[in-house]
């Protein structure tokens, strides 16, 4: 008995189901999102050794290996440090469906912070965006807020 070895078809097994997670936000992160909800502004945390203000707040300053506890109120404004207008299709990890393109991803230095925060900039015409421009956060309405990064809708360019 012989077996056909030269089947034409090379097979593929597909696996398309997402893995579910429920990540703790932690005490510092919870302050960050609660502050957005309550006061519509950002907060950072200051290192007692080097003075760096980190946003979002976290528990440890890596270079100093110090515990951080001093929460620093910031505003809702910052400055563009870098940006990219994205033109390729990509499944939105938050919704599982494709996000409308183009959209602009930005690195933003929030006023009073020393590190860089990242979010969406509400402008897709590259000729209208420049590094150094001031931006202001647009938040969701309080009743729509869920205590996550999407409570910030995007940043508007204000000058």
């Amino acid at each position: 008995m012989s077996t056909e070895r030269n089947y034409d078809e090379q097979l593929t097994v597909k696996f398309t189901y997402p893995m579910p997670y429920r990540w703790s936000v932690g005490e510092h992160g919870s302050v960050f999102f609660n502050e957005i909800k309550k006061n519509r502004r950002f907060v950072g945390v200051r290192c007692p050794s080097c003075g760096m203000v980190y946003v979002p707040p976290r528990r440890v300053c890596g270079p100093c290996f110090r515990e951080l506890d001093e929460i620093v109120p910031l505003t809702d404004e910052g400055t563009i440090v870098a940006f990219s207008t994205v033109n390729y299709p990509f499944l939105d990890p938050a919704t599982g469906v494709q996000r409308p393109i183009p959209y602009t991803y930005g690195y933003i230095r929030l006023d009073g912070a020393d590190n860089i925060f990242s979010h969406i900039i509400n402008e897709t015409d590259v000729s209208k965006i420049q590094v150094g421009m001031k931006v202001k956060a647009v938040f969701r309405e309080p009743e729509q807020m869920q205590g996550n990064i999407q409570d910030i809708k995007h940043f508007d360019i204000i000058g």
Partner: protein
Amino acid sequence: MNDVAIAGVAQTGHESRKDNMIYADMVFDVVTSALEDAGLTLDDIDSVVTVSNDFLDGRTISGMAVGDASGGQDKNISTVEGDGTFGAFYGLMRVLSGYGASIVVAHSKGSECDIRYVTNGMFDPIYQRLLGIEAISASAMQAGEYMQRYGVSEEQLAAVSVKNHGNARNNPYAHLPMDISIDDVMKSRPIADPLKKLDCGPVSDGAAAIIIASPEIAAKATSTPVWVKGVAHCAEDYMIGDRDLAVPVALKDAARRAYDMAGIKNPAEELDLVELYDAFSYMEPLWLEGLGLAEAGKGMSLLEKGVTTMEGSLPVNPSGGVLSSHPVLVAGLVRIIESVLQLRGQAGERQVKNATSALAHGINGPCGQSHCVWILNKDK
């Protein structure tokens, strides 16, 4: 092997959900505590090994996310994706190759993922994974094969659960200290035949850290050093169908090499305690056979003769073992930590009298695909 010491140890309490902690918070706690325990500072450390799993954490290159909290800034940091005993092996090798001291830190939060999905992800995606096999069902088949081969009964195995949950009552870090009977185990909810709920360890959130040091750094430490006398690991086939699940050959090999390195001829007499990775009740007798402490199929006789109880000549899992606390990956590192505490005489209510030599054991992969064996001693 050149002299290497374990100079600092720390673990979190193990529990079902650490709601207020992100991974980095737990890592920072245990690294800070391990340094404090050793009386060392980050300046004494030149190597950091983190232990994590991307599927568990739900992020790619999960080790990088705890770099700051592990003290890894400006240091040679690397990650082991596997049990903490294997991470410790890497930390040890770095010290043997000339580093002064390694922090080894493991974290996991079973509460944040669907652990069935995650352990299902261990298996071959083409032939096994879509059938739904995961750690519990695979282990249930191993339990069944072991019991069938040697005529071991469910009631016999239930005694392991009674002992280890009972020992956990003396361990302030344990997730499930319990005063239970064989009848309680037998009547507990069926999970996957022959395993009932109380035959299975819980899924815990937890973290642990140790500091592995050269004799020079160990001499600076204020803690009592515990010395690594022998260590080995060995793996067998990936596909569980290619293995004899009732005979842990990888463990036999790892144990033999670790004993040789430590100069141990008769482990049953020379060891004072064993901390092994008993994720399920049947694993304790099976691994004791692999460790050469019992003949094939006779692992249960040690408990039945009282040898492995707290009062016996070779207590096994005085801490309550993995049956009572199972932070995945972290659990193996906890076996080393518990052994160190015993050899220092700092194990509190769970202290084994006059402990000078201990064996710590960890596993990786389904049904103990690979095993890591550590022989630790009070004396250099």
